């Protein structure tokens, strides 16, 4: 009996090793090759278009990093969809009145505060994060609308727009720098620190984590705060790139970000995940957007096709994970 168990176990190990880890890379490659062939005359493969994809996905990638931490701890953060707009508007308004540093701090601070609010409700009031962040998603969507009476706020500070948007440093666009730095730091914290290990343990088995001396509430608070703070940074990147802030920013990102994270190999129920996978997942979503536009699909058709492809991708990656 014990030998049967062992062989079933090693078989399972082999299975998951082959598919689960690489599903996102295979999917990425498949979509890339498909568009490369179908759109070879529409400019999909130009350096300009490809680098555009990376630039456009920067905010989503940053949010995805936060969500990997949240989901690895067994929680979810739906509020990022409206945190982005609140942060961008807070930054834009403050920037106009009090200057660059205050603007940046206001944007990041707004995101962090929303994250801490979510986190406190989840960790200490012990409400389910799904319900908490569903409520704060709506709440802050309202806040972002009332902040400026639905008006768009221009961002004219060229240092800000350079740093968070269109700037170039050492020949590399600043949005790529932001993506690369956030992914690198996120990956190291996630994979190589005690905090990262405790996040995973909390999502995996909160009781085991707790009896092992890990403060589960503090981990829950921390992941929600990280997610809020990174959504705030995403708001700054939007404001920088578009040179304006508006309540609609980030509105459609929630589905994309969740899909990127799940396709990238992070379990919805916690305990396992990947920052690099989320990056690739996010690029894959961006490539999908870009390719469908170049194919000339109408906006409604784009939404339908994207929804179906995300459904397929998520189904494949979840099937691999839940044995």
């Amino acid at each position, binding site marked *: *009996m*014990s030998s049967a*168990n*062992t062989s079933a*176990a*090693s078989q*399972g*190990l082999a299975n998951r090793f082959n598919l689960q880890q690489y599903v996102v890379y295979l999917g990425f490659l498949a979509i890339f090759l498909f568009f490369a062939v179908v759109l070879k005359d529409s400019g999909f493969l130009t350096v300009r278009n490809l680098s555009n994809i990376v630039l456009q996905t920067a905010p989503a990638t940053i949010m995805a990093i936060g969500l990997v931490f949240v989901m690895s701890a067994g929680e979810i953060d739906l509020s990022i969809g409206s945190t982005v707009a609140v942060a961008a508007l807070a930054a834009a308004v403050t920037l106009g009145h009090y200057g660059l540093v205050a603007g940046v701090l206001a944007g990041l601070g707004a995101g962090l505060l929303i994250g801490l609010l979510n986190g406190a409700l989840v960790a200490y009031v012990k409400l389910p994060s799904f319900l908490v962040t569903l409520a704060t998603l709506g709440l802050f969507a309202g806040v972002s609308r009332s902040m400026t009476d639905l008006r768009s706020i221009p961002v004219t500070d060229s240092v800000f727009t350079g740093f968070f948007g269109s700037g170039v440093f050492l020949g590399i666009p600043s949005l790529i720098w932001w993506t690369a730095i956030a992914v690198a730091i996120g990956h*190291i914290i996630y994979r*190589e*620190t*005690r905090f990262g*290990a*405790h996040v*995973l*343990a909390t999502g*995996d*088995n909160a*009781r*085991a*984590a*707790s*009896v*092992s*001396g*890990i403060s589960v509430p503090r981990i829950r608070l921390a992941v929600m705060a990280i997610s809020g703070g990174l959504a705030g940074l995403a708001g700054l990147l939007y404001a920088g790139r578009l040179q304006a802030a508006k309540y609609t920013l980030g509105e459609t990102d929630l589905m994309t970000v969740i899909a990127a994270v799940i396709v990238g190999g992070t*379990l919805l129920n916690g*305990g*396992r995940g990947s920052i690099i996978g989320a990056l690739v997942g996010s690029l894959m979503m961006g490539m999908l957007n870009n390719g469908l536009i170049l194919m000339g699909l109408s906006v409604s058709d784009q939404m339908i096709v994207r929804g179906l492809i995300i459904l397929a991708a998520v189904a494949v990656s979840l099937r691999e994970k839940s044995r």
Partner: protein
Amino acid sequence: MNTTEANAPVLKLQDIHKMFSGITAIENFSLEVYPGEIVALVGDNGAGKSTLIKIISGVHSPTSGSISIEGETVTMSNATMARSHGIEVVYQDLALADQQSVYMNMFLGREPVNGLGLLDRRRMIAETENLVKELDVRIPSAHATIRDLSGGQRQGVAIARATHWASKLILLDEPTAALGVAETAKVEEIVLSLKRRNIGVLIISHSLDQVFKLSDRICVLRRGKQIGVRETAKTDKNEIIAMITGLQQQ
């Protein structure tokens, strides 16, 4: 070793009461465990054995009563404190993080870091491999994921973890429940080696054969009440069964 045994008990429970929302789970429980002594805790399902273990390890706090470690009264409000007193536990549900590796579980909550503050994986892996070899628990590798292990292997990991970190007292909640004959013998060997390390052991088991083989004393619990404590050498199975069930044996 016998001289220290005569000294202070490593664990002393006095008049422990535990209520769960109005229901009494443990009443009037008092027990001492000396260094190098193996005490067995027996009783039917729901008698309160696991609850008692969780009170000692700091998962539950007692409604009243006192706990002392090496003569010093302690209040344990969480599991970290019990661990800092050198107490380790193998819980009935093992408390393993299923999707993490064996070595991460071995060091859960106590991961060593290098000078840069990053996880010292090499050290965790090396120490895990040593331990697995030393205790002869058959685990494919330190890298294996817990959920890919068999029930017995998982139990082996939980026991290896507890024996690695325990310095004074180890609490084992049915440590051989999922084990085959050879594995059970191995765990019993490990328990006896703890005795040689002068560590106190409180073991819960439903196997009276095992209890009589390992323990120095047997403590019987029935529906939260402490029925009695017997020296293993001076009692027999009939008496213990009678105490557990409350029925006289013929």
